[in-house]
């Protein structure tokens, strides 16, 4: 089935992105070329649909990705005809196309200067500010990007997407505590987002397993990860990613349960007793096995999981069973 | 207080709730007009007309339950006649349609009564 043009194509695998961008010429042809801006024209022309503009935006993203710059420019022209040159989102999209077409670092520097110029005229232009952060990151200037993003968050602290990007930026620099803090801010803004809970659990797990974590913080990170993964599966039945993380964390905790557990006196969440963790581990194993079985058989109602995730879960399960024999 | 905590732990999806109740309300107002047509054709008067309406709108709820709610709700481990997978209040589900479509019912009832027996 072709992916929907109404959804953001950023995380699609390459094959689907290609399929999506192949739809671009047909969509451009099928819809009218001009959007009328006059009042009389608006009465006679067909009523405009908000989906149309989202479609154009998503088409720009996917055709840039597949290198179809012509289609991207056509889509942009439609958006300009409707919203004008100075619409903030349109400006950001134009910048995006320029970034994609840039051949060398000099051109990128020029685009960066343009962004600075726009921001000096109007420093509340959030889409451009976000592009600037993304461009800095793309050029490898991670700490610059992070500091710019912090400034952006200073005057728009309710932007969950920006907090999430900040967390990812810190993670790229190996700053786990900061990354965890930023991801927690996302959770404050969207407390029921099950994938953010799982993401935070993954961050905690990474922080725990990264070298340099001493005994106390190691335990604390693992306990937090356990808590986050448990919440993510509480919010979402049969959540593959949550169960995967839960199994990983409980497995790690059980493996080094021989070590003496240090009591943290900070009053944080303390690990439950070994029995509970064992039961959690069993639950996660059973659930993962069920998901993998149904998903491989392509049972009706179990086809929503991505193939890569199912493969990873299968690998984890087989690893577990082989190490179980050794034990 | 405890229910508030429970809502925090297991939140309700507002969009789904609205989607479901809108679907059901559309059905109820449509069928209420339909019942008005048949009551008018049958030439029912006073109490028997309202009785007809009550019986048929309960029948609507039952049919809707059997066709839309029961298959998925029972397979997910709910008891029969339990609508809590899709609707918040059970009483609301079974009898809420009565007030919902009454105006439409009376409108078409009187119209068709007049048309047929005039």
């Amino acid at each position, binding site marked *: *089935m072709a992916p929907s043009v*109404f*959804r*953001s194509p*950023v*995380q699609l695998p*390459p094959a689907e*992105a290609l399929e999506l961008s192949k739809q671009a010429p047909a969509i451009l042809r099928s819809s009218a070329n001009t959007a009328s801006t006059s009042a009389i024209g608006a009465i006679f022309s067909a009523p405009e649909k908000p989906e149309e503009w989202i479609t154009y935006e998503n088409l720009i*993203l996917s055709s*840039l*990705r597949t*290198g179809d710059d012509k289609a991207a420019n056509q889509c942009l022209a439609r958006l300009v005809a409707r919203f004008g040159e100075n619409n903030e989102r349109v400006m*950001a999209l134009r910048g*995006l196309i320029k*970034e*994609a077409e840039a051949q060398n670092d000099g051109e990128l520097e020029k685009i960066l200067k343009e962004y600075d110029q726009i921001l000096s005229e109007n420093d509340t232009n959030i889409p451009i500010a*976000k592009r600037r*952060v*993304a461009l800095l*990151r*793309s050029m490898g200037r991670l700490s610059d990007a992070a500091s710019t993003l912090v400034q952006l968050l200073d005057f728009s602290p309710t932007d969950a*997407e920006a907090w*999430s990007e900040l967390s990812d930026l810190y993670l790229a620099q190996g700053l786990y505590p900061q990354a965890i803090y930023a991801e927690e801010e996302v959770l404050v803004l*969207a407390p029921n*987002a099950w*994938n953010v809970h799982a993401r935070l659990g993954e961050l905690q797990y990474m922080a725990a397993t990264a070298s340099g974590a001493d005994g106390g913080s190691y335990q604390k990170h693992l306990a937090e990860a356990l808590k986050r993964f448990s919440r993510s599966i*509480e*919010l*979402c*039945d*049969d*959540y593959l990613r949550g169960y995967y993380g839960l199994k990983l964390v409980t497995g790690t905790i059980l493996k080094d349960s021989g070590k003496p557990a240090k009591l943290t006196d900070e009053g944080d969440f303390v690990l439950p007793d070994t029995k509970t963790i064992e039961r959690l581990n069993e639950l996660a194993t059973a659930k993962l096995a069920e998901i993998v079985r149904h998903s491989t058989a392509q049972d009706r109602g179990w086809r*929503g*999981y991505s193939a890569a995730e199912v493969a990873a879960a299968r690998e984890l399960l087989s690893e577990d069973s082989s190490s179980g024999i050794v034990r | 207080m405890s229910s508030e905590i429970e809502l925090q732990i*297991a*939140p*309700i*999806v507002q*969009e*789904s709730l609205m*989607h*479901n109740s809108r*679907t059901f309300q559309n*059905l109820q107002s*449509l069928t209420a007009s*339909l019942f008005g*047509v*048949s009551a008018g*054709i*049958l030439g029912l008067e006073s109490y028997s007309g309202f009785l007809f309406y009550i019986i*048929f709108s309960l029948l*609507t709820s039952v049919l809707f339950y059997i*066709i*839309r*709610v029961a298959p998925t709700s029972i397979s*997910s481990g709910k008891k029969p006649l339990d609508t809590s*997978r*899709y609707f918040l209040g059970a009483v609301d589900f079974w009898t809420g349609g009565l007030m919902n479509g009454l105006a439409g019912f009376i409108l078409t009832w009187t119209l068709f009564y007049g*048309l*047929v027996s005039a």
Partner: protein
Amino acid sequence: MTFISKAITAVGGILLAHACYSAQEHSALQSFRATSGAALTSAPTTAVSLPLDIVLETIVSTFIILLGLVLVTRPLRPIQWREWAGKIEREGEEGFKDSNGEVNKDYIGNPFAIFESRPNFVDIRKQRKEFAQWVKKEGGQKAQ
């Protein structure tokens, strides 16, 4: 599914229209008999109730239309957060089809996925490079 339910509704509608017409004719006949018969006999003009077949036809057709209307209603969505989220994860697009088999337009998958895809921060140059590599790899596989 949608065809069947629409057909059921249409059949019911025809039956109901027929019942309506019959009832109307019946009452017209009654009043005609009352006016013409008043001259011949002095029988009182009692309103004869509707014949049983028309009554049955009306009720059956109402029931048939009701069934058709219930069948065309859109599928419901779970209201408990974990069931709804689980449905999105487990079934994907399949779980959110209309009664005529198309994916709902307002279905956007996991609404919180933008916190991980972050379309406003997309690194388009990296994506282009990755895509070019993917094309090369695919092309290489096909050539072999």
